């Protein structure tokens, strides 16, 4: 049976796109120099150590060669990017104070009134600054801090300085260095010992403004025995020229804490999304990355977990959908540095319309990390023969009592599956959607319900634009 994949999976996301004209209050001039870096620090009235840190990172960024193991990064023109923009003068405490134009955008993004009441806190990033945060009184009374990273630096200087850049140093890679030099915005989360945050903390991220780089920096510190779930979701309008998103996320999971970090990403098709996400899991701690990548021209992102303490656990579920002109170079890393640690990596990718999905992973068991149990599973679905799928796992085991298993498969939707579903009354299009949604279910089922609905909608949009 011939399945007309091409027609069924046309990309019609543009019709759901939107952008608003925003007046920026302050912005640096295009391009990056030592002066620009110092200027950003000055505008933000940062302490000297942060300015020095930024400059050190800038020097490293300049020195560090562009990575060659993934292609296409040479197209980024660093001189065309505006590295800092400030859309409004101060952090807004209440929804009513948010400028109406920005508010309108959030409403179109779908942050309804009711949801705000329901959810623990909304940190919304609008370009380079966090403009809106509402943290419920209840959280504040628990001692939970959830605010913009710039604000965190000012209000919690000691906690901030103790943990900032300890997980991802600027020298880690070229884009971590770039972020360290020009970072702005992102979330700062601090959960005191023993506190379980009852509802997910959420941050909506959004890029706006042509050629605006977005360099948010998120730092999450979870004290012993505490528990938190952080969710970020991204949407971005489509622009004609390329836009760069180079974020750094650091998670410090102290002994016996539990952290889950969920990302649903839908960058517009011109964005280079180059993200360094890393967590340190201390003794008995559990860190989970639940990560979805759709959209963008190119995403390079390998959420990683360094298992530093005995008995810590890492769990990564990563899904990627690569459409026309897109390369999703994603995966995960689990670095076992301590005994009796466990990791599980599950990756699912879909490529179509000439898109390329790459799984790249690293599983390492260092000397001394005895009794490790680890598994890596990668499945790829290719919807047509224009597309491409790669799997590059690196598995380096240096302890003799490690138990490690890895499996990977690549395939297409079978004509039998489509035929069966169509015999039950589904159209070809619906049948394909259902199969893809089923394929990605390992991810979807980990999401809170409203996100699961949103994600399935996103996949449908990616697949056929036939929403509604």
């Amino acid at each position, binding site marked *: 049976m011939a399945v007309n994949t091409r027609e069924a999976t046309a990309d019609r996301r543009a019709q759901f796109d939107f952008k608003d004209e925003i007046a920026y209050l302050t912005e640096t001039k295009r391009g990056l120099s030592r002066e620009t870096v110092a200027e950003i620090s000055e505008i933000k009235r940062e302490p000297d150590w942060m300015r020095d840190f930024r400059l050190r990172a800038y020097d490293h960024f300049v020195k560090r060669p562009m990575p060659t193991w993934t292609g296409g990064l040479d197209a980024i023109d660093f001189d065309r990017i505006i590295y800092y923009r400030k859309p409004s003068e101060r952090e807004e405490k209440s929804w009513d104070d948010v400028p109406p134009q920005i508010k309108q955008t959030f409403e179109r993004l779908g942050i309804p009134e009711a949801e705000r009441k329901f959810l623990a806190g909304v940190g919304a990033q609008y370009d380079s600054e966090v403009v809106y945060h509402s943290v419920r009184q209840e959280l504040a009374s628990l001692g939970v801090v959830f605010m913009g990273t710039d604000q965190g630096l000012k209000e919690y200087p000691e906690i901030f300085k103790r943990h900032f850049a300890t997980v991802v140093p600027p020298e880690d890679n070229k884009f971590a260095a770039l972020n360290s030099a020009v970072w702005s915005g992102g979330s700062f989360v601090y959960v005191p010992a023993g506190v379980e945050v009852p509802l997910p903390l959420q941050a909506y991220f959004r890029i706006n403004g042509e050629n605006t780089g977005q360099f948010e920096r998120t730092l999450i510190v979870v004290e012993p025995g505490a528990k938190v779930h952080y969710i970020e979701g991204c949407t971005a309008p489509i622009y004609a020229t390329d836009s760069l998103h180079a974020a750094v996320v650091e998670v410090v999971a102290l002994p016996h804490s539990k952290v889950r970090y969920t990302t649903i990403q839908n960058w517009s098709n011109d964005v280079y999304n180059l993200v360094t996400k890393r967590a340190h899991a201390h003794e008995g701690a559990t860190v989970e990355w639940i990560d979805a990548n759709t959209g963008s021209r190119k995403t390079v992102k390998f959420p990683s977990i360094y298992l530093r303490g005995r008995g810590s656990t890492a769990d990564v579920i990563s899904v990627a959908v690569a459409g026309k002109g897109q390369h999703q170079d994603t995966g995960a890393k689990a670095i076992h540095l301590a005994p009796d640690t466990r990791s599980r990596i599950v990756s699912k990718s879909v490529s179509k319309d000439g898109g390329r999905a790459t799984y790249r992973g690293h599983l390492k068991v260092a000397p001394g990390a005895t009794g490790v149990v680890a598994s890596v599973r990668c499945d*790829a679905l290719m919807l047509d023969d224009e597309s491409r799928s790669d799997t590059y796992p690196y*598995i380096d*085991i240096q302890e*003799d009592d490690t138990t490690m298993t890895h499996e990977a498969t690549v395939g297409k939707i079978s004509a039998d599956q489509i035929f069966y579903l169509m015999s039950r009354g589904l159209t070809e299009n619906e049948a394909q959607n259902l199969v893809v949604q089923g394929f990605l279910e390992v991810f979807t089922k980990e999401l809170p319900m409203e996100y699961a609905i949103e994600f399935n909608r996103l996949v449908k949009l990616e697949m056929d634009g036939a929403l509604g």
Partner: protein
Amino acid sequence: MSDLLPPDFITQAGVHARAAAAGEPDWLVAERMDALQRFGELPLEVNPLFTLYVDLRAARLAQTVPYETVGETIDPQARVPDGVAALLEVREDAVAARSLSAETQAAGVVVDTFANVLRDRPQLIRDVVAGGESLPADDKLAQLARAASVVGVVVHVPAGVELAEPIVVRWAVGAGGRALVSRTVVSLGAGAHARLFEEQIGSGAANGSQALWSGTLEVALGEDATLDVAAEQDLPAHVVSFVNRRANLGRNATLRWALAHVGGLVSKSRIDNRLVGRGASVRQVEIGFGGSNQVFDLTSYTTHVGEDTTGDLLSKGVFQDRSRGFMKGMIEIDRSAHGTDSFLGEFGMLLDRKARSVTIPSLEIDQPDVRRAAHSSSVGPIDETQVFYLMTRGIPEDVARKEVVLGFLEPVVARIPLEGAQQRLRTRLDRKWSEARAAAPAGASGSGQASAPKSGSSSGEAAA
């Protein structure tokens, strides 16, 4: 790499001299020059996936002197051994044996050196190697052999010929401070069937410093041809070896590899299976059994070009003491390769704390219309449930452990085509196990491990 080999190891003048000594025609000299240039330009590893996982630090070849000529010390009275179709043995810098059974000779089979074949039938070599198609253009060490080989071996089985007995090619090296650089070219005509047994062993000579053996196996299989290759590398502990094996398979051709890497200090092996003809199929089983400070770097590429081709590759490594294994593999499915079935498995067993296993099984898929495209990999200790089972049958624990390990390797051993060689390999593996166990500190492995289980689940999922 610049300091891996001495700077004058391979020079233009030296290459010309070797070619002249062998009376090589211009086209082959041009091949050497092309290779020499590539050798000079290429990094040791071009694949960015594997770049960080090439570890030849233990190789100390900076004083190594290559043999410049290879002579003959063939006993004219020597007959081909029983059960063998043909034998060619190169011992250090001399061809020590070359004999074909009467039937083999009558069938038109060629097993000879480049020098001899170039006199009468140069086309047998040219058809396979011309244009550098028979070796990977991006592999520095393959280009080393292509540029600097001092001896070549040709195996040719004409169309329609089916050999019941195996052809044996033996390399005996190990003289300290010396290097033997060689090539082996194998072609099978349409419908031919043959078995090839390739051995790398010690020559008995040694004077303390390291030695190098560098070789190739360049295989061209015609339509419906079937070739079984068994190879056993059991070089002395001071020998470094580099081998590139590459096969181009025609329509419905079948190639089966059984490869055992046991000896040597540093062994770097790369296999390229190119499934070009429709319905071509390759099956490969490979084992590495490391002890002391041995390093095995085993890379397998399978490239599916034609339709309905099949690849089934299995690499297994057992690493004791401080030995290290790098098992790297890639399945490439070209857009033209509809109906591919491809599997790559890389399984490691680590027996001591200082042992290390790296596995990188990769996929690059351009055509989703496949029957199967998958890989799998595992690393684990000895499966305690298997040991336990054997113990319940009355087998003592130390024997049970040995049997589990040797059983893990047996699928390759069982495919060595000569009974004597097969039994010899079994004995060798057995001895290697016993030596390493005797040398291992108490409690570091073996029965000591059973007393310190980390968790219940760490046994059930071990590599099998």
